[in-house]
């Protein structure tokens, strides 16, 4: 078994640099369009000590002194570039699961030399889309993710591709990696692991008593530890222990659909269902994609339309999402074709409660939270 995790380096920044390559050797950050907090930094901006989530106004002096370019988020563009990235990966990888806007797992078990494949993938994406990506390969998803971290940590040596070929290499990395870098552990859990069990490295987590981990924490932490030992616990399809970074609601219609009204009704339902899932995980979406297409088996009148909509502010409000979905649907709709499937995709989430208002941005609905809480019960 071998899995690869492929992700774009500083995706939003790299996307902006694609059309302004002359800024590549300068520090660049992307700010969220709602509250002006840093959501992406290139390496040079990281080197200046700019932190993720830092408000841009706090950084004003530093940004000016160092000629940092600040872009505001262009979520439609990022999503459309992400769609291309994933299409290329679909083309190059035997099996693929998309994790988030800039990240996907590939099952590379059948590939003779995964490292050579990884370098090929990196080069192809650089050539075709101008996006730098990292590739980490290991025998489980968690190891692949950690290999990816290593690939980027030692960029100069790895060229952003790392393959945990054998036990020795694996052990070396696990002994070095802080436990907080392990997939699904995060800062809060890593603090508790250190305080309660004295676990500070990935190696210690891998070798901890599984029952103890389950009792103190959760079955997921136990499984994460086993994955670090090379025992596959997270299945390839949709086994993410993390919160979803993309929510998809779509369905094939039982009966053929012709009219815009019918499609609108379906799309509103999808938006509402997606909104419920979004609220359940306490996220707000920045971007919505709506699509409708004819059956893949009726080549006669085939049509597939898709629109990406940047939401005016990060939201989990059913009304905002339904409105955006309908707006998009109306521009992609063509009368004539018999539609067989439609759907709504939410992406580019921020955590609920982490955003502060922007004086100049459109205001989120004021009663939204209470109303959505009520909707949660029905």
């Amino acid at each position, binding site marked *: 078994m071998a899995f690869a995790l492929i992700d774009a380096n500083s995706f939003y920044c790299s996307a902006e640099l694609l059309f302004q*390559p002359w800024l590549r050797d300068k520090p660049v950050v992307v700010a969220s369009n709602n509250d002006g907090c840093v959501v992406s930094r290139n390496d040079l901006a990281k080197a200046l000590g700019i932190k993720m989530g830092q408000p841009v106004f706090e950084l004003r002096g530093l940004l000016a002194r160092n000629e940092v370019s600040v872009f505001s988020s262009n979520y439609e563009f990022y999503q459309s570039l992400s769609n291309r990235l994933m299409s290329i990966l679909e083309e190059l990888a035997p099996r693929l699961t998309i994790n988030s806007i800039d990240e996907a797992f590939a099952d590379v078990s059948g590939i003779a030399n995964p490292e050579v494949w990884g370098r090929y993938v990196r080069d192809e994406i650089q050539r*075709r*889309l101008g996006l730098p990506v990292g590739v980490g390969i290991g025998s489980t998803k968690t190891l692949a993710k950690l290999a990816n971290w290593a690939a980027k940590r030692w960029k100069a040596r790895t060229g952003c591709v790392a393959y945990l070929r054998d036990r020795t290499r694996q052990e070396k990395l696990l002994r070095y990696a802080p436990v907080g870098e392990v997939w699904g552990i995060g800062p809060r859990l890593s603090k508790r692991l250190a305080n309660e069990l004295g676990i500070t490295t990935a190696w210690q987590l891998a070798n901890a008593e599984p029952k103890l981990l389950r009792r103190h924490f959760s079955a997921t932490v136990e499984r994460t530890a086993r994955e670090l030992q090379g025992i596959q616990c997270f299945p390839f399809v949709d086994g993410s222990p993390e919160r979803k970074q993309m929510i998809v609601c779509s369905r094939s219609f039982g009966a053929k659909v012709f009219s815009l009204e019918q499609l609108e009704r379906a799309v509103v339902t999808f938006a509402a269902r997606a909104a419920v899932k979004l609220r359940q995980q306490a996220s707000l979406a920045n971007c919505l994609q709506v699509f409708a297409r004819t059956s893949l088996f009726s080549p006669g009148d085939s049509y597939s339309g*898709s629109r990406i909509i940047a939401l005016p502010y990060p939201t989990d409000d059913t009304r905002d999402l339904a409105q955006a979905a309908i707006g998009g649907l109306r521009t992609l709709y063509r009368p004539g074709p018999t539609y067989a499937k439609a759907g709504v995709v939410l992406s580019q989430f921020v955590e609920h409660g982490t955003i502060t208002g922007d004086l100049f941005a459109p205001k989120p609905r004021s009663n939204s939270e209470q109303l959505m809480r009520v909707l949660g019960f029905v």
Partner: protein
Amino acid sequence: MNASLIASLSPSLQPQPLPLGGQASCGFPSPAADYQVPDLSLDTLVGIRPSSSIFLLRAWGESMQDAGIHDGDLLVVDKGRRAQPGDVVVAVIGPEFVVKRLALDEEGQPLLLAENAGYDPIRLGEDEPLEIWGVCLWVLHRLAGR
């Protein structure tokens, strides 16, 4: 001649086929104008697929007018293609995209040629590597007014 990005192109999964209206003669009317050809898609024709490396850029300036590229034209640019001498390319020169024809001088050094007698070729400095962003495949020139 410079170029700027006009829109991030979002290819549809299923390109929209358009009827190809046969051949159009720029000389005298063709007697073969009648034959029927299957529908074509503009997306497919210019190479746009969901996974493609094709981007649309808006050209501005006059330096490529003899190559049929005029101020305001749309360029279909392939980012993935390796440029060959003779190709019209989008190159990164300073903080700009420039559109020129790629050539090699007597010493085999790359040279960017304008196609307008009023403009000089661009020669790069000693240690200045030429950065080609993409190769222009098509130019869309608007004929009718808005």
